[in-house]
Protein backbone atom coordinates (compact mmCIF):
# COMPACT_ATOMS: atom_id res chain seq x y z
CA UNK A 1 0.00 0.00 0.00
CA UNK A 2 1.28 3.47 -0.91
CA UNK A 3 2.18 5.77 1.99
CA UNK A 4 1.93 8.82 -0.22
CA UNK A 5 -1.33 10.71 0.22
CA UNK A 6 -3.00 11.09 -3.16
CA UNK A 7 -6.41 12.39 -4.13
CA UNK A 8 -7.63 8.81 -4.35
CA UNK A 9 -6.46 7.55 -0.96
CA UNK A 10 -6.98 10.76 1.03
CA UNK A 11 -10.57 9.99 1.94
CA UNK A 12 -9.77 6.29 2.34
CA UNK A 13 -7.22 7.30 4.98
CA UNK A 14 -9.66 9.65 6.70
CA UNK A 15 -12.35 6.97 6.62
CA UNK A 16 -10.05 4.33 8.11
CA UNK A 17 -8.98 6.67 10.89
CA UNK A 18 -12.27 8.20 11.92
CA UNK A 19 -15.23 6.16 10.73
CA UNK A 20 -15.84 4.50 14.12
CA UNK A 21 -15.94 7.69 16.13
CA UNK A 22 -17.91 9.58 13.48
CA UNK A 23 -20.38 6.71 13.33
CA UNK A 24 -20.70 6.84 17.14
CA UNK A 25 -21.24 10.56 17.11
CA UNK A 26 -23.93 10.31 14.45
CA UNK A 27 -25.53 7.34 16.21
CA UNK A 28 -25.99 9.39 19.37
CA UNK A 29 -27.57 12.22 17.40
CA UNK A 30 -30.01 10.01 15.52
CA UNK A 31 -31.67 8.19 18.40
CA UNK A 32 -29.28 5.24 18.18
CA UNK A 33 -30.81 4.09 14.92
CA UNK A 34 -28.01 2.02 13.43
CA UNK A 35 -29.08 1.91 9.78
CA UNK A 36 -29.80 5.64 9.69
CA UNK A 37 -26.43 6.34 11.31
CA UNK A 38 -24.71 4.15 8.71
CA UNK A 39 -26.40 6.05 5.85
CA UNK A 40 -25.53 9.44 7.29
CA UNK A 41 -21.93 8.36 8.00
CA UNK A 42 -21.53 7.43 4.33
CA UNK A 43 -22.97 10.78 3.21
CA UNK A 44 -20.58 12.59 5.54
CA UNK A 45 -17.54 10.95 3.93
CA UNK A 46 -18.85 11.80 0.46
CA UNK A 47 -19.21 15.39 1.66
CA UNK A 48 -15.70 15.32 3.10
CA UNK A 49 -14.41 14.32 -0.32
CA UNK A 50 -16.37 17.12 -2.04
CA UNK A 51 -15.07 19.67 0.52
CA UNK A 52 -11.46 18.49 0.45
CA UNK A 53 -10.22 21.65 -1.29
CA UNK A 54 -11.60 23.76 1.56
CA UNK A 55 -9.56 21.96 4.23
CA UNK A 56 -6.89 24.17 5.75
CA UNK A 57 -4.51 22.26 8.08
CA UNK A 58 -3.42 25.55 9.65
CA UNK A 59 -6.95 26.22 10.91
CA UNK A 60 -7.87 22.79 12.31
CA UNK A 61 -6.62 19.24 12.55
CA UNK A 62 -8.03 16.68 10.13
CA UNK A 63 -9.98 15.13 12.99
CA UNK A 64 -11.52 18.46 14.01
CA UNK A 65 -12.39 19.26 10.40
CA UNK A 66 -14.08 15.86 10.04
CA UNK A 67 -16.23 16.61 13.08
CA UNK A 68 -17.12 20.06 11.76
CA UNK A 69 -18.29 18.59 8.45
CA UNK A 70 -20.23 15.91 10.33
CA UNK A 71 -21.90 18.40 12.60
CA UNK A 72 -22.82 20.67 9.69
CA UNK A 73 -24.28 17.71 7.83
CA UNK A 74 -26.38 16.77 10.84
CA UNK A 75 -27.65 20.34 11.16
CA UNK A 76 -28.70 20.25 7.48
CA UNK A 77 -30.24 16.83 7.94
CA UNK A 78 -32.34 17.84 10.92
CA UNK A 79 -33.34 21.07 9.24
CA UNK A 80 -34.91 18.94 6.53
CA UNK A 81 -36.42 16.48 9.00
CA UNK A 82 -37.94 18.65 11.72
CA UNK A 83 -39.79 15.80 13.45
CA UNK A 84 -36.56 13.93 14.00
CA UNK A 85 -34.61 16.83 15.45
CA UNK A 86 -32.79 15.82 18.64
CA UNK A 87 -34.74 12.60 18.71
CA UNK A 88 -32.91 10.38 21.14
CA UNK A 89 -35.68 7.86 21.72
CA UNK A 90 -34.23 4.41 21.48
CA UNK A 91 -36.24 2.00 19.37
CA UNK A 92 -36.56 -1.29 21.28
CA UNK A 93 -35.49 -3.58 18.42
CA UNK A 94 -32.45 -1.59 17.25
CA UNK A 95 -29.10 -3.34 17.42
CA UNK A 96 -26.63 -1.24 19.32
CA UNK A 97 -23.27 -3.06 19.38
CA UNK A 98 -22.25 -5.76 16.98
CA UNK A 99 -19.57 -7.02 19.33
CA UNK A 100 -21.77 -7.39 22.43
CA UNK A 101 -21.63 -11.01 23.60
CA UNK A 102 -24.82 -12.93 24.24
CA UNK A 103 -24.07 -13.33 27.95
CA UNK A 104 -23.70 -9.62 28.57
CA UNK A 105 -26.48 -8.59 26.20
CA UNK A 106 -29.19 -8.52 28.87
CA UNK A 107 -27.15 -6.44 31.37
CA UNK A 108 -25.89 -4.11 28.69
CA UNK A 109 -29.37 -3.62 27.26
CA UNK A 110 -30.65 -2.46 30.64
CA UNK A 111 -27.66 -0.22 31.24
CA UNK A 112 -27.89 1.13 27.72
CA UNK A 113 -31.54 1.96 28.26
CA UNK A 114 -30.73 3.72 31.55
CA UNK A 115 -27.92 5.76 30.06
CA UNK A 116 -29.76 6.79 26.90
CA UNK A 117 -32.82 7.70 28.95
CA UNK A 118 -30.75 9.93 31.24
CA UNK A 119 -28.87 11.48 28.37
CA UNK A 120 -32.19 12.07 26.65
CA UNK A 121 -33.22 14.28 29.55
CA UNK A 122 -30.26 16.59 29.02
CA UNK A 123 -30.52 19.62 26.78
CA UNK A 124 -29.21 18.98 23.23
CA UNK A 125 -26.15 21.17 23.80
CA UNK A 126 -25.31 19.32 27.06
CA UNK A 127 -25.76 16.00 25.32
CA UNK A 128 -23.46 17.02 22.52
CA UNK A 129 -20.75 18.14 24.95
CA UNK A 130 -20.81 14.84 26.83
CA UNK A 131 -20.71 12.91 23.58
CA UNK A 132 -17.74 14.85 22.23
CA UNK A 133 -15.79 14.83 25.47
CA UNK A 134 -16.41 11.40 26.96
CA UNK A 135 -17.47 9.19 24.08
CA UNK A 136 -15.47 10.70 21.24
CA UNK A 137 -12.70 11.70 23.69
CA UNK A 138 -11.93 15.00 22.02
CA UNK A 139 -9.82 17.62 23.76
CA UNK A 140 -11.39 20.84 25.03
CA UNK A 141 -9.50 22.81 22.37
CA UNK A 142 -10.90 20.60 19.60
CA UNK A 143 -14.45 20.82 20.96
CA UNK A 144 -14.13 24.60 21.14
CA UNK A 145 -13.12 24.73 17.45
CA UNK A 146 -15.93 22.40 16.39
CA UNK A 147 -18.55 24.36 18.31
CA UNK A 148 -16.91 27.68 17.54
CA UNK A 149 -16.82 28.69 21.20
CA UNK A 150 -14.28 29.77 23.77
CA UNK A 151 -12.33 26.98 25.54
CA UNK A 152 -13.20 28.19 29.04
CA UNK A 153 -16.89 28.36 28.16
CA UNK A 154 -16.70 24.76 27.00
CA UNK A 155 -14.96 23.63 30.20
CA UNK A 156 -17.64 25.16 32.40
CA UNK A 157 -20.46 23.82 30.26
CA UNK A 158 -19.01 20.29 30.34
CA UNK A 159 -18.65 20.41 34.10
CA UNK A 160 -22.30 21.42 34.50
CA UNK A 161 -23.47 18.80 32.02
CA UNK A 162 -21.64 15.94 33.71
CA UNK A 163 -22.94 17.02 37.12
CA UNK A 164 -26.48 16.95 35.79
CA UNK A 165 -25.96 13.57 34.14
CA UNK A 166 -24.57 12.06 37.32
CA UNK A 167 -27.67 13.25 39.16
CA UNK A 168 -29.96 11.75 36.52
CA UNK A 169 -28.09 8.43 36.51
CA UNK A 170 -28.32 8.14 40.28
CA UNK A 171 -32.10 8.66 40.07
CA UNK A 172 -32.45 5.78 37.56
Amino acid sequence: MSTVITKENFIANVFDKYHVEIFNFILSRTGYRKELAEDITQEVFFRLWKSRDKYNPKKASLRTWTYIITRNYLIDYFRGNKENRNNINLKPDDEFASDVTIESAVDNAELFRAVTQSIGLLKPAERELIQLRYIQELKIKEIAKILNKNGDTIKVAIHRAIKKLRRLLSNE
Partner: protein
Amino acid sequence: MNNIDNKTRETLNVLRTRPDNAWVEKTRISLGKYISLQVQVENVTDSNSSRIPVRSFNFLFNTNMGKQAKLALSVLASMILLIGGSFATATAANASVPGDLLYGIDRAYEDIQRALKTSPESKAEFEIYLLEERAQELSALEENDSEPDLIEEAVDNITEQEENVQTRLRDSEDNENSDSGELERIRERHELQQQENLKLMEKVQNKYQIKNDENKQDQGQQDNSTNNGSGQSDENGANGGGNL
Protein backbone atom coordinates in the same frame (compact mmCIF):
# COMPACT_ATOMS: atom_id res chain seq x y z
CA MET B 1 -11.28 14.24 32.07
CA ASN B 2 -10.77 15.10 35.74
CA ASN B 3 -14.32 16.02 36.57
CA ILE B 4 -15.86 12.64 35.80
CA ASP B 5 -15.90 9.74 38.21
CA ASN B 6 -15.02 6.22 37.11
CA LYS B 7 -18.54 4.93 37.51
CA THR B 8 -20.00 7.58 35.19
CA ARG B 9 -17.19 7.04 32.71
CA GLU B 10 -17.78 3.27 32.70
CA THR B 11 -21.47 3.87 32.27
CA LEU B 12 -20.87 6.15 29.30
CA ASN B 13 -18.64 3.49 27.73
CA VAL B 14 -21.81 1.52 27.04
CA LEU B 15 -22.59 4.10 24.39
CA ARG B 16 -19.49 3.24 22.38
CA THR B 17 -20.48 1.10 19.45
CA ARG B 18 -18.85 -0.03 16.24
CA PRO B 19 -20.43 -0.33 12.82
CA ASP B 20 -20.61 -3.79 11.25
CA ASN B 21 -17.49 -4.96 9.44
CA ALA B 22 -19.57 -5.75 6.34
CA TRP B 23 -20.86 -2.18 6.23
CA VAL B 24 -17.31 -0.81 6.70
CA GLU B 25 -15.99 -2.88 3.82
CA LYS B 26 -18.90 -2.02 1.50
CA THR B 27 -18.53 1.69 2.27
CA ARG B 28 -14.77 1.65 1.76
CA ILE B 29 -15.15 -0.03 -1.65
CA SER B 30 -17.97 2.26 -2.81
CA LEU B 31 -16.15 5.39 -1.67
CA GLY B 32 -13.10 4.20 -3.59
CA LYS B 33 -15.11 3.57 -6.79
CA TYR B 34 -16.84 6.93 -6.57
CA ILE B 35 -13.64 8.86 -5.96
CA SER B 36 -11.70 6.99 -8.64
CA LEU B 37 -14.42 7.78 -11.18
CA GLN B 38 -14.39 11.47 -10.23
CA VAL B 39 -10.60 11.66 -10.38
CA GLN B 40 -10.58 10.20 -13.92
CA VAL B 41 -13.21 12.73 -15.01
CA GLU B 42 -11.17 15.55 -13.45
CA ASN B 43 -8.02 14.28 -15.20
CA VAL B 44 -9.73 14.47 -18.60
CA THR B 45 -10.47 18.17 -18.11
CA ASP B 46 -6.93 18.94 -16.94
CA SER B 47 -5.41 20.71 -19.93
CA ASN B 48 -1.90 19.93 -18.68
CA SER B 49 -2.27 16.19 -18.84
CA SER B 50 -1.82 14.70 -22.28
CA ARG B 51 -3.02 11.25 -21.31
CA ILE B 52 -4.62 9.44 -18.46
CA PRO B 53 -2.19 6.98 -16.84
CA VAL B 54 -3.53 3.47 -17.28
CA ARG B 55 -2.42 2.52 -13.77
CA SER B 56 -4.96 5.04 -12.41
CA PHE B 57 -7.68 2.59 -13.41
CA ASN B 58 -6.18 -0.25 -11.41
CA PHE B 59 -8.17 0.59 -8.32
CA LEU B 60 -11.37 -0.05 -10.26
CA PHE B 61 -10.26 -3.63 -10.83
CA ASN B 62 -8.53 -4.50 -7.62
CA THR B 63 -11.75 -5.10 -5.78
CA ASN B 64 -13.53 -8.38 -5.47
CA MET B 65 -16.08 -7.99 -8.23
CA GLY B 66 -17.60 -10.27 -10.84
CA LYS B 67 -16.72 -10.35 -14.56
CA GLN B 68 -19.81 -8.39 -15.57
CA ALA B 69 -19.09 -5.58 -13.12
CA LYS B 70 -15.49 -5.35 -14.36
CA LEU B 71 -16.70 -5.22 -17.96
CA ALA B 72 -19.20 -2.48 -17.13
CA LEU B 73 -16.51 -0.43 -15.43
CA SER B 74 -14.03 -0.88 -18.27
CA VAL B 75 -16.67 0.34 -20.74
CA LEU B 76 -17.26 3.34 -18.49
CA ALA B 77 -13.50 3.98 -18.27
CA SER B 78 -13.28 3.86 -22.09
CA MET B 79 -16.12 6.37 -22.34
CA ILE B 80 -14.18 8.71 -20.06
CA LEU B 81 -11.06 8.33 -22.22
CA LEU B 82 -13.03 9.09 -25.37
CA ILE B 83 -14.56 12.26 -24.00
CA GLY B 84 -12.67 15.41 -24.96
CA GLY B 85 -11.48 17.87 -22.36
CA SER B 86 -14.22 20.37 -22.95
CA PHE B 87 -16.98 19.34 -20.57
CA ALA B 88 -16.21 16.11 -18.72
CA THR B 89 -16.76 17.13 -15.10
CA ALA B 90 -18.85 15.44 -12.46
CA THR B 91 -21.03 18.54 -12.25
CA ALA B 92 -21.66 18.44 -15.99
CA ALA B 93 -22.48 14.73 -15.70
CA ASN B 94 -25.14 15.45 -13.09
CA ALA B 95 -26.83 18.02 -15.33
CA SER B 96 -26.94 15.68 -18.33
CA VAL B 97 -30.01 14.26 -20.05
CA PRO B 98 -30.65 11.23 -22.29
CA GLY B 99 -28.63 11.65 -25.46
CA ASP B 100 -25.75 13.48 -23.72
CA LEU B 101 -22.32 11.85 -23.73
CA LEU B 102 -22.07 12.14 -19.93
CA TYR B 103 -25.49 10.66 -19.21
CA GLY B 104 -24.03 7.19 -18.76
CA ILE B 105 -21.59 8.51 -16.14
CA ASP B 106 -24.44 10.30 -14.34
CA ARG B 107 -26.37 7.04 -14.09
CA ALA B 108 -23.23 5.18 -12.95
CA TYR B 109 -22.80 7.64 -10.06
CA GLU B 110 -26.42 7.07 -9.11
CA ASP B 111 -25.90 3.29 -9.05
CA ILE B 112 -22.95 3.70 -6.71
CA GLN B 113 -24.96 5.93 -4.39
CA ARG B 114 -27.89 3.51 -4.53
CA ALA B 115 -25.69 0.60 -3.46
CA LEU B 116 -24.66 2.50 -0.32
CA LYS B 117 -28.13 3.10 1.06
CA THR B 118 -28.84 0.85 4.04
CA SER B 119 -32.11 1.67 5.80
CA PRO B 120 -35.42 0.98 4.00
CA GLU B 121 -36.43 4.64 4.41
CA SER B 122 -33.23 6.01 2.90
CA LYS B 123 -33.51 3.56 -0.02
CA ALA B 124 -37.08 4.68 -0.69
CA GLU B 125 -36.20 8.36 -0.39
CA PHE B 126 -33.22 7.97 -2.71
CA GLU B 127 -35.46 6.39 -5.37
CA ILE B 128 -37.85 9.35 -5.01
CA TYR B 129 -34.90 11.72 -5.45
CA LEU B 130 -34.01 9.82 -8.65
CA LEU B 131 -37.63 10.11 -9.79
CA GLU B 132 -37.30 13.88 -9.41
CA GLU B 133 -34.08 13.72 -11.46
CA ARG B 134 -35.78 11.76 -14.27
CA ALA B 135 -38.61 14.32 -14.30
CA GLN B 136 -36.10 17.19 -14.56
CA GLU B 137 -34.45 15.43 -17.50
CA LEU B 138 -37.77 15.09 -19.32
CA SER B 139 -38.58 18.72 -18.55
CA ALA B 140 -35.20 19.85 -19.97
CA LEU B 141 -35.69 17.79 -23.12
CA GLU B 142 -39.20 19.18 -23.60
CA GLU B 143 -38.01 22.78 -23.18
CA ASN B 144 -35.30 22.19 -25.79
CA ASP B 145 -37.80 20.69 -28.27
CA SER B 146 -35.75 17.50 -28.35
CA GLU B 147 -36.27 14.62 -30.74
CA PRO B 148 -39.25 12.35 -29.98
CA ASP B 149 -37.06 9.29 -29.43
CA LEU B 150 -35.19 11.07 -26.61
CA ILE B 151 -38.50 12.19 -25.13
CA GLU B 152 -39.71 8.61 -25.30
CA GLU B 153 -36.54 7.40 -23.56
CA ALA B 154 -37.02 9.98 -20.81
CA VAL B 155 -40.66 8.98 -20.33
CA ASP B 156 -39.65 5.29 -20.13
CA ASN B 157 -37.03 6.23 -17.52
CA ILE B 158 -39.71 7.91 -15.41
CA THR B 159 -41.97 4.88 -15.66
CA GLU B 160 -39.14 2.56 -14.68
CA GLN B 161 -38.13 4.81 -11.80
CA GLU B 162 -41.72 5.03 -10.52
CA GLU B 163 -41.68 1.22 -10.28
CA ASN B 164 -38.43 1.38 -8.29
CA VAL B 165 -40.04 3.85 -5.89
CA GLN B 166 -43.11 1.66 -5.42
CA THR B 167 -40.91 -1.38 -4.70
CA ARG B 168 -38.89 0.49 -2.07
CA LEU B 169 -41.97 1.98 -0.43
CA ARG B 170 -43.51 -1.49 -0.20
CA ASP B 171 -40.27 -2.82 1.34
CA SER B 172 -40.31 0.00 3.89
CA GLU B 173 -43.92 -0.63 4.79
CA ASP B 174 -43.24 -4.36 5.22
CA ASN B 175 -40.21 -3.71 7.40
CA GLU B 176 -41.26 -3.71 11.06
CA ASN B 177 -38.25 -1.55 12.01
CA SER B 178 -39.24 1.30 9.73
CA ASP B 179 -39.97 4.68 11.27
CA SER B 180 -43.63 5.41 10.52
CA GLY B 181 -43.18 9.18 10.86
CA GLU B 182 -40.28 9.17 8.44
CA LEU B 183 -42.21 6.91 6.07
CA GLU B 184 -45.17 9.27 6.13
CA ARG B 185 -42.94 12.20 5.20
CA ILE B 186 -41.36 10.21 2.38
CA ARG B 187 -44.79 9.17 1.05
CA GLU B 188 -45.92 12.80 1.00
CA ARG B 189 -42.80 13.76 -0.95
CA HIS B 190 -43.58 10.98 -3.43
CA GLU B 191 -47.20 12.06 -3.84
CA LEU B 192 -46.14 15.63 -4.57
CA GLN B 193 -43.69 14.38 -7.18
CA GLN B 194 -46.32 12.13 -8.76
CA GLN B 195 -48.63 15.14 -9.18
CA GLU B 196 -45.80 17.15 -10.78
CA ASN B 197 -44.99 14.22 -13.08
CA LEU B 198 -48.62 13.95 -14.17
CA LYS B 199 -48.70 17.63 -15.20
CA LEU B 200 -45.37 17.22 -16.99
CA MET B 201 -46.54 14.13 -18.87
CA GLU B 202 -49.72 15.90 -19.97
CA LYS B 203 -47.70 18.88 -21.16
CA VAL B 204 -45.30 16.65 -23.08
CA GLN B 205 -48.12 14.58 -24.54
CA ASN B 206 -50.00 17.71 -25.70
CA LYS B 207 -46.89 19.28 -27.18
CA TYR B 208 -45.75 16.20 -29.04
CA GLN B 209 -49.28 15.30 -30.10
CA ILE B 210 -49.62 18.81 -31.59
CA LYS B 211 -46.23 18.39 -33.28
CA ASN B 212 -47.33 15.02 -34.59
CA ASP B 213 -50.59 16.50 -35.89
CA GLU B 214 -48.70 19.41 -37.50
CA ASN B 215 -46.31 17.00 -39.15
CA LYS B 216 -49.21 14.94 -40.46
CA GLN B 217 -50.92 18.10 -41.71
CA ASP B 218 -47.76 19.23 -43.50
CA GLN B 219 -47.33 15.77 -44.95
CA GLY B 220 -50.97 15.79 -46.04
CA GLN B 221 -50.58 19.17 -47.79
CA GLN B 222 -47.48 17.93 -49.58
CA ASP B 223 -49.32 14.83 -50.69
CA ASN B 224 -52.27 16.94 -51.90
CA SER B 225 -50.09 19.26 -53.99
CA THR B 226 -48.36 16.28 -55.60
CA ASN B 227 -51.71 14.63 -56.40
CA ASN B 228 -53.21 17.91 -57.85
CA GLY B 229 -50.31 18.30 -60.29
CA SER B 230 -50.56 14.82 -61.75
CA GLY B 231 -54.39 15.02 -61.79
CA GLN B 232 -54.33 18.12 -64.06
CA SER B 233 -52.14 16.47 -66.64
CA ASP B 234 -54.32 13.43 -66.55
CA GLU B 235 -57.38 15.57 -67.17
CA ASN B 236 -55.62 17.22 -70.09
CA GLY B 237 -54.64 13.88 -71.41
CA ALA B 238 -58.09 12.51 -70.94
CA ASN B 239 -59.45 15.47 -72.79
CA GLY B 240 -57.27 14.64 -75.72
CA GLY B 241 -54.26 16.74 -75.24
CA GLY B 242 -55.88 20.00 -74.33
CA ASN B 243 -53.89 23.00 -75.38
CA LEU B 244 -50.85 21.22 -76.75
